[in-house]
């Protein structure tokens, strides 16, 4: 033993040892996360629980207690029996309408946004940035401002009330944010690839289809998710620009919830609400990872 060994800090290491999993800091960290998780999960839990109770139980108990007797009747009713006016076929009609609206709207709006983003990123021409600026400003215009002019535009095009009119409206309002996403993503692709492709004789469309699209799966997924959720969740356009037989599911949901006949059937309402949210939720759960990745690629660049 030398003299130095007697000094504090020579034998025992200085500083504190790394903490274990149960260190106060970790408890704080996970505790905070869990509390926030409660806030985010509570509504989903209550929705599910409520939709599985019958009305008597709802009136008795509290919203958080699990169902004593699980019943799927509210789900059946919401899907197939709930009434709006004299139509009592539940949400099912709205569901298929939404599918019929969603698919063409999704394809067309994403295609046009991708193509426009491609032009803005790789084939700028004089004034293209100005148009892009105008387009971006469009994201800030409240829908209400354009609701009426669009009625006129659709009327002049003879599309009012048709499915294609709604597709057009979705495409128009999807443009600003989706074009921004695509443009930012494409700008970040290596410029030399485009040069190489041009030297290789690929033109505007060749580069787009053969080079850019195959490289851009993540951003297509992001745009796709935004569009699926946006179109599926749309209420305003669906209600203004279609006829009742084409009403999307959200409108149907609102109709069912608001067509109170007698008492509010909260369990049916919650089942209907869940059913309506199911499609975007499923889409999100299956592709959420890609979505997060794509957001990282598209949004961070600003």
């Amino acid at each position, binding site marked *: 033993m030398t003299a130095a060994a007697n000094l504090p800090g020579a034998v025992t290491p200085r500083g504190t040892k790394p903490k274990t999993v149960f260190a106060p800091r970790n408890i704080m960290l996970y505790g905070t996360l869990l509390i926030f998780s409660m806030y985010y999960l509570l509504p989903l839990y209550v929705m599910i629980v409520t939709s599985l109770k019958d009305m008597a139980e709802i009136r008795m108990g509290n919203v958080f207690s699990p169902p004593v007797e699980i019943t799927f009747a509210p789900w059946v009713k919401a899907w197939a029996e709930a009434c*709006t006016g004299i139509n009592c076929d539940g949400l099912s009609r709205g569901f298929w309408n939404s599918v019929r609206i969603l698919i063409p709207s999704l394809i067309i709006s994403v295609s046009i946004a991708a193509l426009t983003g491609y032009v803005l990123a790789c084939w700028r021409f004089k004034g293209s940035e100005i148009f892009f600026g105008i387009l971006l400003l469009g994201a800030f215009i409240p829908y209400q401002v354009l609701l009426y002019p669009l009625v006129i535009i659709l009327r002049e095009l003879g599309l009012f009330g048709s499915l294609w009119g709604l597709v057009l409206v979705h495409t128009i309002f999807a443009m600003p944010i989706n074009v921004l996403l695509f443009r930012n993503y494409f700008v970040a692709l290596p410029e030399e690839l485009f040069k190489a492709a041009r030297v290789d004789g690929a033109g505007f469309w060749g580069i787009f289809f053969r080079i850019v699209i195959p490289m851009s799966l993540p951003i297509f997924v992001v745009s796709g998710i935004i569009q699926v959720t946006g179109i599926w969740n749309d209420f305003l356009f669906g209600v203004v620009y279609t006829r*009742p037989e084409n009403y999307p599911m959200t409108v149907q949901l609102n109709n069912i919830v608001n067509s109170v*006949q007698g008492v509010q059937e909260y369990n049916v309402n919650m089942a209907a609400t869940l059913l309506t949210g199911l499609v975007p939720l499923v889409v999100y759960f299956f592709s959420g990872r890609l979505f997060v990745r794509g957001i990282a690629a598209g949004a961070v660049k600003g």
Partner: protein
Amino acid sequence: MKKTLSLLATTSLISAGSAACAVDLEVTHWWTSGGEAAAVAEFARLFNENTEHTWVDGAIAGAGGTARPIMIGRITGGDPMGATQFNHGRQAEELVEAGLMLDLTDLAEEEDWRDIVNPPSLLDSCTLDGRIYCVPINIHSWQWLWLSHQAYEEAGVDVPTNWDEFVAAAPALEEAGKIPLAMGGQPWQQNGAFGVMAIALAGIEAWEAVNVDQNAEVAAGPEFARVFEAAAEARALSARSNVQDWNQATNMLITGQAGGQIMGDWAQGEFQVAGLVAGEDYSCLPGLGVNEIISTGGDAFYFPKIDNAETEAAQLELASLMLSQEAQVAFNLKKGSLPVRGDVDLEAANDCMKRGLEILASGNILPDANQTLSPDTQGQIEDMMTEFWSDQNYTAEDAQRLYAEIIARAD
């Protein structure tokens, strides 16, 4: 035209032979509550049975405020429906002026609508420059105070017979844990209730001065001051009522949670659906039991112009059918409203309806505010009213001052 009518006259036997002309006629309306839906189903049934055409139901949920924009949007947007409900009066005025609505004058003359529609003022609301553009189908009156017998029994007090008794009985209800006055949170309900109180408490002359002649002085005067005070009182009675829709409020009466509700006669449809009997389970006080008078607002159907002869024929058939005796009885019994023709037999009508019919026959009638004020003015009043009703600190004086200002600006 003639041919269509004769077809109708001989009812539907010939439908097989003219299948080529069958039209799917879309009819939009905002009747989605239980009683309403049952009533409109009668129209659909009769239309499908008696003509070769098909009723395509275009129910739009929410109150008229939600549904009308959609209807107007579609008509002006070039995608008109076959027929659509409006409250007749000024709601569709401009659409008619713009030539977007089918002129029904020929049909009306053929069928002598002038003679059969009672009161004739209903048809006047459908008339613009001497031409008729809509079919009135029912008379709705706002001036009813509905009372839940169950609630009063449970609170141990007698069912009131007029507004003052109603107010006096309120503390007993409160004690029993009940809400004296059920009131939905939607502006039109609050405004409607105020209108009812105005007619009952300020009197017909004052009401007409304000609502028909748009006299702001009267609106700011002592008669209306009394109305506002009463409304403030009513507001306190409804303080714990936290439903949105009128039928939910009615449901509070049906289940005995609330004592009374000021609501139009359509509330009756809800009582009926719930199997309650007028006079036994619930009672009704026209004009709040103070001033027995009813306004004759109502629903009417307009037929947007569609450039297709077959559709037009079907539209006229529907117009004619809606005014037929059979349809009038079937529809109004379910809806709880009064028929627009005096020559129908309403044997099946209940107590309250019969009282309404009596008042109607006695001529104690007023036009509905929808017929006299533009939707814009109505809307401004509704904004003011809903704020007044929902804020216990909003004084009656403030509300009246603002009310007078709106009336002064009315067009």
